[in-house]
């Protein structure tokens, strides 16, 4: 095969369909990134944490969606609510810790309240403004507490009791409308018994968030993983389905992983999640950037927080069953870590892959084609997942993924 000069390199092969490649500017252009925050990230339901991270009334977690700081709190009524973590007074973060309990006394406030440390305004667990310091003296009758509550966000606790939040009040869908079609394949496994998070770590990688999502949804990169080459390459493996679901989500599953073929592997059959046949797995990639990966004995959930066109934070969680004995839990943790832990076999390689792509697609770099043209009857190495994702992306952005300067709607006509 001859190498190509600039003109040849920049001309797509005639045989490639318009949906079989994307233009790298969708990964590198800061203006497109800003538009994605508005049109996609601020409009979607996102799983932000698990309810076991705030198990008791008054427990909270702090998070971020599309640069907006968010506070998730369990009320005395046990209901989990989400608020902007922004004080209505002068815009300070109300809570700065990653997690904790509002039952504890705070330096400038009272127990059972969220207190903004700056000027001591206090809020209850429903977001009502409960206290304004020297209220009458300063605001007389012009401003009242009832007009100064927190901004509440739509929040649902569902699908294995994950906490889902959307910034969009006008989003008419429920989480079930949004993701139910894709998560149906594992819903009974997630909901059979209470789950508990046992693993958390984060990575901040110099790459576009979609490149990480693509890596979760394309399995052709099995070639990067020694573990997959040795355990997975069987006829049953190549027959696994790769199925597009509504709203841009994709599901890949299920086959029997032959763990014992890897020298350090062990069958995980006996600790399979409730209702999940031994050694099976499902990978559910949720638009625009979350992933539920149920593999035998452990559930991994990745949640992305895009920080800029070329930087993404990925949070990695591992979950088991709340009722696990100490010994069962430890075995689940070992299973989880061997492949997916920060010192495990595959995660390290996956992150190297996307860091390498990120290095070659920096903002301002030359536009190039990224090919997603594999067709294999919608089985595991078929790139239908990425094509499906970019169809949804194109619709939401009204930009053509293979040429983002063109309108998606016009190109579709």
């Amino acid at each position, binding site marked *: 095969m001859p190498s190509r000069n600039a003109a040849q390199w920049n001309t797509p092969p005639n045989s490639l369909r318009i949906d079989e490649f994307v233009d790298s500017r969708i990964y590198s252009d800061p203006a497109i990134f800003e538009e994605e925050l508005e049109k996609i990230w601020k409009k979607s339901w996102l799983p932000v944490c698990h309810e076991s991270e705030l198990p008791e009334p008054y427990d909270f977690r702090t998070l971020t969606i599309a640069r907006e700081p968010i506070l998730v709190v369990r009320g005395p009524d046990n209901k989990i609510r989400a608020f902007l973590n922004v004080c209505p007074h002068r815009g300070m973060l109300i809570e700065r810790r990653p997690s904790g309990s509002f039952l504890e006394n705070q330096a400038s406030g009272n127990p059972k309240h969220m207190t903004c440390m700056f000027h001591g305004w206090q809020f209850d667990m429903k977001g009502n403004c409960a206290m304004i310091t020297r209220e009458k003296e300063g605001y007389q009758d012009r401003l009242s507490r009832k007009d100064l509550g927190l901004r509440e966000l739509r929040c649902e606790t569902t699908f294995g009791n994950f906490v889902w939040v959307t910034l969009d009040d006008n989003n008419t869908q429920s989480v079930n409308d949004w993701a139910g079609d894709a998560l149906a394949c594992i819903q009974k496994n997630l909901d059979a018994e209470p789950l508990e998070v046992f693993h958390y*770590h984060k990575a901040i*990688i110099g790459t576009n968030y979609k490149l990480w999502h693509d890596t979760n949804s394309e399995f052709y990169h099995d070639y990067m993983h*020694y573990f997959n080459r040795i355990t997975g390459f069987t006829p049953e493996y190549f027959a696994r389905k790769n199925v597009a679901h509504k709203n841009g989500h994709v599901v890949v599953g299920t086959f029997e992983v032959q763990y014992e073929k890897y*020298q350090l592997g062990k069958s995980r059959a006996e600790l399979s999640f409730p209702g999940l046949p031994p050694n099976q797995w499902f990978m559910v990639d949720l638009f625009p950037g979350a992933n539920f990966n149920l593999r035998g004995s452990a559930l991994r959930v990745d949640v992305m927080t895009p920080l800029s066109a070329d930087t993404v934070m990925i949070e990695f969680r591992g979950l088991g069953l709340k009722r696990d004995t100490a010994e069962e839990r430890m075995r689940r943790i070992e299973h989880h*870590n061997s492949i997916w832990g920060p010192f*495990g076999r595959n995660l390290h*390689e996956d*992150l190297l892959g996307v860091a390498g792509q990120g290095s070659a697609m920096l903002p301002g770099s030359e536009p190039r084609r990224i090919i997603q043209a594999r067709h294999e009857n919608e089985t595991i190495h078929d790139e239908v997942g990425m094509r499906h994702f970019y169809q949804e992306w194109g619709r939401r952005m009204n930009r053509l993924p293979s040429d983002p300067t063109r309108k998606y709607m016009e190109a579709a006509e």
Partner: protein
Amino acid sequence: MPASRDTIESVKDAIYKSCLLLDDFKFKDWLELCDSDFTYAIVAYSPEIRRDMTYFSGDRKQLATMLDLLPKHNTDHSPLKRHATVYDVAVDDSGKTAEAITSVLIYQNMLDGINSHIDAGENRLFVVGRYLDTFRLNGGAPKFVRRHVRLETRRLDKGSHWPL
């Protein structure tokens, strides 16, 4: 009976020797410092989920197998180098075992993890934590029976395939 200076020094020597061998990728020699029932774990506390976590664990045999398989895996080859200070060595009353606390910083000397033209040669702080070691003293020839690497670091951008 208070432990002798020599006993304490022999424990410190073993810890520093382990650092040197790990720095130099002499993993087989490192395992030679460990008894046959040696166990290793990387652990951390997460204030996010308010739980103690295990990020990696293995016994001597599993570690040996893993280290043998490393060349078959793709890896960020940026070498890791330690700076360690033994803060405390406590010998038990029988004089047979000891526990040590070592503060450790591990630096990554960038090589091929991102874009080597730009990053190679640069040093980045990789992790911060402590080695919590347990020894069998064997009358002056201590062997590791347990190492817990307790990390403070929970942002692990690309983690590592190598023991810390």
